């Protein structure tokens, strides 16, 4: 099996079925969130759009998310005068039905009930305000960092990634990032891939993966990324600090050695998800010599 075949099979196992449980749940929360926000801010209804890996076509099963952006008009103080107030008011509106985890600019939705407490719904709500009447760029609040607001454009981001021709390579790298616990933020990783592979667009997936890893191993400090929606205004250097670059370099080195040894299973595991699913759990359970019992404090 070639590296490209291996990666393609792995990605297939990471694809969510269009009629599957996960996408249905995303649809359900998408509607629920929209209903909450439109009801809460009914005086001048916000613009609600969808982004994240679903819109960018870079979704993988182990790390998928739906971004629901909730933008108010540039002259609308319905949800608050400042971006911070908008962020807090949207958070409060959602907190009745969800456990809301504040992130730098987004609000992560998790379960609040007895049976789904802190179950991750893979939905981020991003409150913001358009910069002007054209409704293209917007300001979003930043809870941490040097600036308290960020100017950005979700459509630009989606197009930059979705139309790059590198979505499969991005999916592979996302999986690699998650599986190895490297911790690079998804948006930054996407930009890294698009930047590093801009001259490799026509190559096979296997060659792109090797090219990406080689670049990370040999020149991770030489890669510079910019926010396509605001190249001069948004500084992404904090998200790609020396610690992260070192992790990328280190893991890329070991992954390349596995590939060079044709030891693909060490990269993403065996290409046996179909075979794996066919093994009944009872068989696995019966093979355990010494079972242990969980507890809870």
């Amino acid at each position, binding site marked *: 099996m070639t590296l490209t075949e291996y990666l393609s099979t792995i990605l297939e196992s990471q694809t969510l079925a269009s009629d599957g449980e996960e996408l249905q749940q995303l649809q359900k929360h998408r509607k629920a969130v929209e209903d909450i926000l439109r009801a809460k801010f009914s005086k001048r209804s916000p613009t609600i759009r969808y982004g994240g890996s679903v819109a960018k076509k870079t979704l993988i099963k*182990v*790390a998928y998310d739906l971004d629901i952006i909730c933008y108010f008009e540039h002259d609308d103080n319905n949800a608050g005068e400042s971006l911070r107030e908008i962020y807090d008011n949207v958070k409060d509106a959602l907190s009745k039905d969800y456990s809301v985890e504040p992130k730098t600019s987004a609000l992560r939705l*998790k*379960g609040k009930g*007895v*049976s*789904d*407490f*802190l*179950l*991750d*719904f*893979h939905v981020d709500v991003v409150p913001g305000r358009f910069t002007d009447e054209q409704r293209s760029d917007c300001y979003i609040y930043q809870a941490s960092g040097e600036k308290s607001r960020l100017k950005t454009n979700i459509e630009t981001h989606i197009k930059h990634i979705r139309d790059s021709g590198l979505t499969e390579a991005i999916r592979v790298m996302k999986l690699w990032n*998650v*599986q*190895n*616990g*490297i*911790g690079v933020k998804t948006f930054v990783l996407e930009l890294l891939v698009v930047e590093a592979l801009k001259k490799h667009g026509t190559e096979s997936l296997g060659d792109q993966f090797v090219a990406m890893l080689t670049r990370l191993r040999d020149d991770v400090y030489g890669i510079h990324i910019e926010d396509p929606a605001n190249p001069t205004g948004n500084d992404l250097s904090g998200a790609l600090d020396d610690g992260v670059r070192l*992790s990328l370099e280190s*893991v890329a080195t*070991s992954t390349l050695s*596995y590939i060079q040894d044709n030891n693909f299973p*060490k990269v993403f*595991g*065996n290409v*046996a*998800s179909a*075979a*794996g*699913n066919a*093994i009944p*759990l009872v*068989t*696995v*359970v019966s*093979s*355990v010599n*010494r*079972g*242990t*019992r*969980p*507890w*809870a*404090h």
Partner: protein
Amino acid sequence: MAHLARSNTPVFIGLVDGYPNLRVRGTLKDGAVVLQGKFPIIYEGTEIECFFIRMAVPYDFPKSLPRVWETQGRIPHTPERHVNRTDGTLCVMFPDEAYLGEVSITTVVNYLDGPLRNYFIGQLCFERGEAWPWGEHRHGEDGIFDFYSKLVGADNPVVVLRVLVQVYEGRYKGHWWCPCGSGEIIRKCHGSLMRRIREKIPERLLERTIVAIGKRLDAPLISNDAARR
């Protein structure tokens, strides 16, 4: 991971080969080494499922057990799923079982291959609507009592407590009457168990156990010595 393997840290032996996607992310202020990444469930060379974890291996492992979190938000933080609501740590096992050697844990790989793998197999069973395969400890203090009740061989919490308090106070002789009330001397009754508990169970856990079981009584069974400490 390479530097850990090269530094000949015995507790991490086998980790790079066995779990190549679990990476060192750093250390905590308390000296715990943090590993993060993919934890696969492998059966005869085939990966049947995987979870994603962060694990803090304490500096005095295996005297202290790792704290583990599931990082994808796949498992809700409920007692039913054996995840602690307060801090999101997974309740992989009742820790005293490991200390008493009921489950052998000498390296991180032992822990991953054994209790943690079992825990996630249990989670898979639960997700598929099946029972936990090897049963479950009851939560909280009920689970503590169940364990020690079985160990001591008595259902009466007074009996269990007398034995544990005697161990805690640490002053007894083999020819004394056994605190369980059997009429036998310690040496011929619960002596070897008491020695095991004294040698293996950290004092803080023994205190926790005595307090937990003591709540089952109308009045706590603590001697003057223990109360003064």
